[in-house]
C-alpha cells in the first residue's frame, strides 16, 4: 500500500512537470507575439531574449479600436463563426448519428465521399468556386461564406460525431424503445446528451474554421464593410513594411475568444456526467 502511494505521488509530480514544460513550450511563442504587440514602431523580431520590450506600450491596442475598424471585423467574424458553429452542430450531429446507427445504401460511399472533399488542394478550387458563386450571386454575401465554411467544417464534424456515437452502446436505444420512446426521441433525449464531448469538439472546430479562414474570405468578401478578422489582420501585412505592432495586438485579442470559448465548453468536454455513469 505504501509503495502504491509512493508511485501515485511520483506519477502526480511527473505529471505536473510534464504539464509545466509543455505549458512553457506552448506559451513562449505566444508570449513573443504579445511582446511584438507591445513594441513601438513595428518590430517583428528582437535581437535579445528580453521578456518585456524596452519602452513597451499598449498604444497598438488602442490604435486597433480608434484608428481601425477592428470592432467591426470582430462583430462580422463573430456573427459568421457562430452561424457556422450552429449549422455545423445541427447538421453534423444528425448526419453522424445516421452514419453510426443505421445501415443504408451508399453509407460507405457517403462516408468516403466526405473525406474525398478534403483531399483536393484548395489552391485549385478557388477559380471554379468563385465562378460558381458569381453565378449564384453569392459573392460579397455572408450566405456565400457561411455555406463555404460549413462545407469545409462538416466532413470532419460528421466523421467525428459518428466516431463518438460508435462508442455509445446500442443497448441504450433499446432501453429507450422499451420505455416507449420513438427513434427520434431516443436520439434527442438519450444519445444526444451523452455525445456532449463530441458536440463540443464539433462546435470548436466549426468555430475555428470560420474564425481563422483567410483564402476563401479574401476571394468572396470584396467589400471592406463585410471584412472578417483574418482579412483585417492581413491588411496590416504588406509586402515590405508591415504593421507588426498592430498585427501582434490583433492576434492577441483574436486568440482570447477562442480560449474563452474553449474553457466554457470544456465543462462538457471533460464532464464526469457521461457514459461512465450511464453505462453502469
Amino acid at each position, binding site marked *: 500500500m505504501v509503495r502504491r502511494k509512493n508511485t501515485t505521488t511520483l506519477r502526480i509530480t511527473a505529471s505536473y512537470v510534464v*504539464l509545466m514544460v509543455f505549458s512553457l513550450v506552448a506559451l513562449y*511563442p505566444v508570449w513573443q*507575439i504579445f511582446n511584438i504587440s507591445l513594441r513601438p514602431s513595428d518590430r517583428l523580431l528582437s535581437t535579445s531574449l528580453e521578456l518585456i520590450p524596452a519602452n513597451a506600450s499598449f498604444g497598438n491596442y488602442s490604435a486597433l479600436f480608434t484608428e481601425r475598424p477592428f470592432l467591426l471585423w470582430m462583430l462580422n467574424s463573430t456573427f459568421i463563426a457562430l452561424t457556422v458553429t450552429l449549422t455545423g452542430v445541427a447538421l453534423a450531429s444528425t448526419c453522424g448519428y445516421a452514419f453510426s446507427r443505421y445501415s443504408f445504401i451508399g453509407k460507405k460511399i457517403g462516408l468516403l465521399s466526405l473525406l474525398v*472533399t478534403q483531399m483536393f488542394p484548395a489552391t485549385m478550387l478557388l477559380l471554379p468556386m468563385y465562378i460558381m458563386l458569381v453565378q449564384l450571386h453569392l459573392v460579397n454575401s455572408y450566405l456565400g461564406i457561411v455555406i463555404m465554411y460549413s462545407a469545409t467544417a462538416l*466532413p470532419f464534424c460528421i466523421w*467525428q460525431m459518428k466516431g463518438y456515437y*460508435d*462508442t455509445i452502446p446500442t443497448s441504450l436505444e433499446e432501453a429507450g424503445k422499451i420505455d416507449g420512446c420513438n427513434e427520434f426521441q431516443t436520439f434527442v433525449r438519450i444519445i444526444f446528451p451523452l455525445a456532449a464531448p463530441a458536440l463540443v469538439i464539433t462546435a470548436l472546430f466549426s468555430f475555428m474554421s470560420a474564425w481563422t479562414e483567410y483564402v476563401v474570405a479574401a476571394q468572396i468578401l470584396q467589400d471592406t464593410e463585410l471584412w472578417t478578422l483574418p482579412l483585417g489582420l492581413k491588411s496590416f501585412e504588406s509586402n515590405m513594411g508591415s504593421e507588426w505592432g498592430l498585427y501582434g495586438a490583433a492576434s492577441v485579442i483574436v486568440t482570447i475568444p477562442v480560449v474563452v470559448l474553449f474553457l466554457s465548453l470544456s465543462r462538457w468536454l471533460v464532464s464526469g456526467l457521461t457514459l461512465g455513469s450511464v453505462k453502469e
Partner: protein
Amino acid sequence: MQSQTLRHRIYLFILVAPAFVVLFGVVIYPFFYNIVLSLSNMNLRHIRDWRIIGFGQYIKVFTEPSQPDFYVVFLKTVIWTVVNLFFHVVLGVFLALVLNQKEIRGKAIFRAILVLPWAVPQLIVALTWRGMFNYEYGSINLMLTQWFNIPGVQWLRHPLEAFIAVIITNVWLGFPFMMVIALGALQSIPHDLYEASDIDGASWYHKLRHITLPLIRPVMVPAITLGTIWTFNNLNIVWLVSNAGEPSDQTHLLVSFVYKAAFNFYRYGYGAALSMVIFFILLVFSLTFMRKSKATQNVYS
C-alpha cells in the same frame, strides 16, 4: 409495415440530406471543373481559348524535370506528414491522459495554455518561429548557446535543418487539436472498466493497451485520417517558416508545386493535373487506412 420502412427512409433522409446538400452543392462543380482543367492546356497563353488535350499534363507531372525533383518532394511530403501526425497524436493523447487524471489541480489553466497554439493566428506565429530559428538572433540558438553551451545551429541555411525547423513549428501548432479530440474521446470510456482492471491488478500499460487505446480509436481514427490529409496539403507553415522554400527551394511540399504552377506561372492545366495526382495519393491512403482501422464499423458491433 410498408409505411414503417417508408417513414424510416424519410427519417434517415432528413438526418443525412441537409449536410450532404450543403457539402456537394459546394464541392461538386469545382471538382468536375478541375478534372476538365487537368485534361486541358489552360495556361498563360491559352487562358480563354483552352481546349482538351488528353493526359499530357499528367505525363508532365511524372516526367517533366522539375526543380526540385518531383519524387524527392513527394518523399519529403510523406516524411513531413508521417512525422507530424506521429507527434501530433502521441503528444496530444499523452497530454490528454495526463490532464485527465483526477488528482491534477488547475486543469483549466493548463488546458487554456495548452490550447493556445491552436487558437493563435498562424501567420504571425509562423513568422515568429522563423525569427526564433535565426542563426545569430533567434531565441532558440541564444538559449542553446547561453544556457546549454551548445553551438548554434544554422537552421535556415541547410536543407535538413530547415526541414526539421518547419516540422518543429507544425508539431507545435498541431498537438493541441489532437489533445482536444483525445480529451473528448477519453470521456467515452466507462469508469468501471478501469475499476475492474484495478481489482485484477493490471499495470497502467495493460490498461492503456487494452482499454484506453481501443476505446478512443473510433474518435481518433477520423481525426488521424483527416489530419493526414490536411497535413499533406498544408502549404502555409512550410511556406512561411522557410520563406517560400529556403534554402534554395529545398523545403517544399507537393502542394507548393500546385501553388507555384497556378499562381506564379499561370499553368492552370498542369496545376489541376497535379492536384488530381495528389487527390489520388490521398484517396489510396484513406481507403487503405480505413480498411485497416475499421473506421466505418461500430466498436460494439
